[in-house]
């Protein structure tokens, strides 16, 4: 596993991961534009299955509990990340993994 996990802000931590293997291949995704395409697909699937609504409900409940003016972005990320990672449907995960694998295999460096 990547030693830099968990990563509250992927973009900010990406720069620190350029030295490790995950960062290298993730940069390949970014440079080719595939990352944006994958993100678009992932967002679409997560909306369709209700995952996004569930996460928004969690955030809203937490904000009500802590107070709207006291909640920070880091708080919300830390609150919903474990549930978010665990509640992704297997079909969505499988589809994205297949897409990522196909892209990496098409790379001459793979």
């Amino acid at each position, binding site marked *: 596993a990547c030693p830099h996990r968990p990563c*509250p802000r*992927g973009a900010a931590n990406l720069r620190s991961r350029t030295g490790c293997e995950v960062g290298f291949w993730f940069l390949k995704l970014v440079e080719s534009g595939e990352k944006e395409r994958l993100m678009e697909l*992932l967002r679409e699937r997560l909306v369709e299955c209700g995952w996004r609504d569930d996460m928004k409900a969690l*955030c809203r409940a937490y904000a009500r509990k802590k107070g*709207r003016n006291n*909640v920070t972005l880091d708080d*919300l990320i830390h609150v919903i990340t474990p549930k978010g990672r665990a509640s*992704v449907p297997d079909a969505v995960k499988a589809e994205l*993994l297949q897409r990522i694998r196909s892209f*990496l295999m098409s790379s001459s460096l793979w």
Partner: protein
Amino acid sequence: MSSSNDAPVSPRSQLVLSCFEELLDFAVADVASECHRIARLGLDRSVDAEEEELRLWAARVAGDHPGAEDGATRAAGGGGGNKGAPDVFGQTHPAIAADVVDCMNCGRPVVAGRFAPHLEKCMGKVNPPSVPGICYRR
């Protein structure tokens, strides 16, 4: 939902999985960012206020009209069908609206409650019965 306790995976599969988890972290950050903005700007307050008003209105209507759940009285959505009953904002309106408005066709002041019949006649002057089918002003 998502099973993370799988058998040992190959390094390449682990790499693919790590890339997926990176993408998922971006998705999580998107949702958290949007919800944070909504919470800090108080945009969800309007939703809460509307829900509260709906609850109060439903409770008030249920208290004022116990058992009056027929569709005829509720068909107008609380405005025209329930004359004198408070609307979703808690305001009570007279049976016939007494506001005076200016007709945009002829310019004459008309009582709002009689505006529709007035407009029907007012617009009808443009289309005399002797010339049916003509719907434009001369």
